[in-house]
């Protein structure tokens, strides 16, 4: 292991200034840093080891409940999820309105899928759910439909984040029809064998494992089939940064975050970043959807 003297990595000024107490604090932090030096970058992530229930349910990006990662856990406790219904409409032969009870009666299975956030971290989550195609097959999509749009509930009374213009509320996300019909595109009804916690998108969310997390809309009330590409929330907020596709792609950097590597949630401070995989590791399953497309342009 490479050894540095403390004086080599700490600016001299600070090094000289600190009294003995500070020195010891500095040493312990410095020692942690030095311990981690082995410059081995981890290889592929282990898709089987699930993140803890606690981390999955306390570390969330859900701006309807605030921009802090802990906000959704604290503020979504009393969010009303019953009664609830989901409309499926737009370019369909048979528009539908399904109650949450009807949707939950569809058989869910455990799907252990990896979530990669655009901010550069990832979790492995044992979701409960079923393929979105099961719902879409009920409504008979018209041939003119090219896209699908998901709309989150607008409820500023309970979703305090919606009282501020952080994003254009309600939150809109979308997919191409072939993406939506892919068996990995999951309607999520629960996690860890339990019903879905509010902070994770109860009572019903979508999950698309090969795309950055923000594509997976939460607390969905409307699913609309359209001809035009939906004006999705983050693309609307900053089109240069967030594309419609937003497929996990280590070769296309976000202007602010490198997408080549990611930190695994729940690991210790000494654990290194791991390499981000193309399509978040689901390349074999989904790459054919994008054959012939320039993924640098269609980010």
């Amino acid at each position: 292991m490479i050894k540095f003297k403390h004086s080599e990595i700490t600016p001299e000024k600070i090094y000289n200034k600190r009294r003995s107490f500070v020195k010891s604090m500095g040493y312990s932090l410095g020692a942690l840093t030095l311990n981690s030096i082995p410059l081995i970058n981890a290889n592929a992530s282990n898709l089987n080891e699930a993140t803890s229930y606690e981390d999955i349910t306390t570390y969330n990006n859900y701006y309807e409940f605030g921009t802090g990662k802990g906000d959704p856990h604290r503020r979504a406790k009393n969010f009303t999820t019953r009664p609830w219904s989901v409309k499926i409409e737009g370019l369909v032969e048979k528009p539908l309105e399904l109650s949450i009870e009807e949707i939950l009666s569809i058989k869910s299975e455990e799907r252990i899928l990896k979530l990669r956030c655009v901010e550069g971290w990832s979790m492995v989550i044992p979701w409960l759910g079923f393929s979105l195609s099961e719902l879409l097959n009920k409504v008979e999509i018209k041939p003119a439909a090219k896209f699908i749009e998901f709309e989150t509930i607008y409820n500023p009374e309970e979703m305090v984040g919606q009282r501020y213009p952080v994003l254009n509320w309600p939150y809109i996300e979308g997919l191409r029809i072939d993406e939506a019909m892919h068996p990995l595109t999951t309607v999520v009804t629960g996690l860890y064998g339990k019903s879905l916690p509010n902070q994770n998108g109860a009572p019903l969310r979508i999950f698309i494992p090969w795309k950055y997390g923000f594509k997976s809309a939460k607390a969905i009330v409307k699913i609309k089939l359209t001809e035009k590409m939906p004006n999705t929330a983050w693309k609307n907020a900053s089109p240069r940064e967030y594309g419609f596709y937003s497929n996990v792609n280590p070769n296309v950097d976000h202007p602010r975050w490198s997408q080549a590597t990611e930190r695994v949630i729940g690991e210790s401070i000494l654990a290194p970043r791991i390499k981000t995989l193309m399509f978040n590791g689901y390349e074999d399953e989904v790459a054919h959807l994008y054959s012939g497309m320039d993924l640098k342009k269609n980010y």
Partner: protein
Amino acid sequence: MKNYLKPFVFLLLLWPIYIISYQIIFNELGPEPVDRIINHFGEWTLIFIILTLSISPLRKLTNSTEWIKFRRMLGLFAFFYASMHMLSYVGLDYRFDFEPLIDDVLKKKFVFIGFSAWLLLIPLAITSSDKMARLLKQNWKKLHRLVYVIAIFGVLHFIWLSKTIFFKPLIFLIILIILLLFRINFNKSDSKI
């Protein structure tokens, strides 16, 4: 009594170190500990820069020169926390793997401006002693006006790295603007400082 004031304030200003040490020791850093440590030192750097910039307005408002005694200490602490911020980014997050780091500095404007702010802090830290102030005479004051550039860079760094300006980056921006406005007023009314 007076003799104990400075050491007391010194120990008080180590507050961020106590907090993070507690969180490290008792495993309370949360699900993304590395990010937590980097952000902790980053936010405290901004707070200390804001505190440093508050001394002059405080002196005016309270009509007391007592405050000035602590400005150097605050400034040096700002530099200390900025260095801890950078060290945790370079060491904990990137494991001293300089290739992606250099890539970050060149390609990402928030890293570039943050790194620039840290570089600009170095000459201020080096020239912080009484001896240096005497040595540089009038130039000392000019040099230390760099703190305004550093503060603006620091807040821009925070705004640019955040997905949205709501709410912490916005709060820092507002406080900084207020502190800068103070300067304009004072300069007009009684010209020197």
